[in-house]
């Protein structure tokens, strides 16, 4: 039986690169989708509010694992089973993060006092102008800390992409463990690599939050 060595570590490092790539895809895709869903959540149209609300409930009420299975088998049904695993994993994580980011950002948008909307309205701004010139700049300041915090959730949840056959950090660890059966060495290394990616983000998010609280005082 081979023992856990440098070659394995190299394999893990490359897999960690894929974890970061997948996280970036999920954040960018989820960010764009989530932004529009957040806008729909505070829209004046009841229909849009209802639909986007249902979407968020659906995404937040189902495990990511099930979402990934559904996309994987769904793609196969429409004949796209030859696509690289990265696409299926990216799509699943995009939907997942859009649901959560939309809800985080809706909260930030609504935490801007109503009087700001009114003040902007009284200056004869259109709804779009009110949103982009007055509300968004204020909401973004509040949103940075929780958004960076959610990045950590995304990175951690890419570990589930293994179920659609994508070899990222966790899956790589599992493969190595299958051949070496040294779970402590393998998974502690894997955990350490995740920690190295996630901890700076967590610390950054906390720092942002602290600065925001000081600024408000």
């Amino acid at each position, binding site marked *: 039986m081979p023992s856990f060595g440098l070659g394995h570590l190299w394999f893990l490092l490359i897999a960690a690169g894929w974890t970061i790539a997948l996280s970036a895809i999920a954040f960018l895709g989820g960010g764009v989708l989530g932004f529009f869903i957040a806008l729909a959540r505070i829209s004046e149209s009841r229909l849009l509010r209802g639909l986007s609300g249902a979407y968020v409930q659906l995404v937040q*009420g189902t495990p990511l694992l*099930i979402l990934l299975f559904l996309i994987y088998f*769904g793609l196969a049904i429409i004949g796209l089973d030859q696509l690289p695993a990265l696409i299926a994993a990216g799509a699943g994580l995009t939907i997942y993060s859009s649901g959560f980011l939309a809800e985080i950002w809706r909260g930030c948008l609504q935490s801007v006092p109503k009087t700001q909307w009114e003040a902007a309205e009284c200056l004869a701004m259109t709804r779009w102008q009110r949103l982009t010139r007055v509300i968004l700049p204020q909401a973004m300041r509040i949103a940075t800390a929780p958004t960076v915090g959610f990045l950590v959730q995304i990175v951690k949840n890419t570990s*589930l992409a293994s179920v659609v056959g994508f070899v990222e950090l966790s899956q790589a660890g599992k493969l190595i463990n299958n051949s070496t059966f040294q779970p402590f060495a393998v998974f502690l290394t894997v955990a350490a690599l995740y920690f190295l990616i996630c901890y700076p983000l967590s610390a950054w998010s906390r720092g942002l939050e602290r600065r925001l609280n000081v600024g408000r005082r």
Partner: protein
Amino acid sequence: MTYQFEFSSLLPYWREFLDGVWLTLQLSAISTVLGFTGGALCAIARADGPPWLKRVVGAYVEVIRNTPLLVQVFLVYFGIAVLGIRVDANLAAVLALVVNVVAYTCEIMRAGIESVHKAQVEAAECLGLNRRQTYWHVILRPAIERVYPALVSQYVLLMLASSITSQISAEELTAVANRIQSDTFRSFETYIVVGLLYLALSFVVRWAFWGFGMLVFTRRRKLGTAL
């Protein structure tokens, strides 16, 4: 597109689905109770313990919160096996979930404890309450009440995340789904059904927590403040 949806071949498996739901609920309930207790104790240790304990708990919380649950599950399951102890997958699953949720609960409870004003503690001391009594009556109870919504969200997430333990073949809902889809070759339909079951579960769990909150937090019930 020519795909024919066909849910009827899943019907014979209704008992298995229910068993999966039941085990998911059990896993979540046990992990929630143990996780809450452990998390509250950790939060107290972190707020008021000796410096070394504060550091240990702080490090534990950071490590857990910055690594994936899946890796934690693998570590517990394969780690126990390599130590030569034979453990049932369900037990390993509970163990991993508890280790995980204790850290999140600790962080939420810490925020709650910090939100209790110092003057409250002073008032309790001046009434002659000892440390334990002060902690329970004046710090923990209002702290729990304040962070209850955050705790509920966390425990709903826990219920959903328990699906991850299917990866070490704990026999909960997702593992049941994996088996049924390989029996029936109706993968898409199986996961639609299971997705809906989880959705229903998340509503039921939320609703149960809401009811429990109304029962326990009499002030909220009486003043009609949203929980």
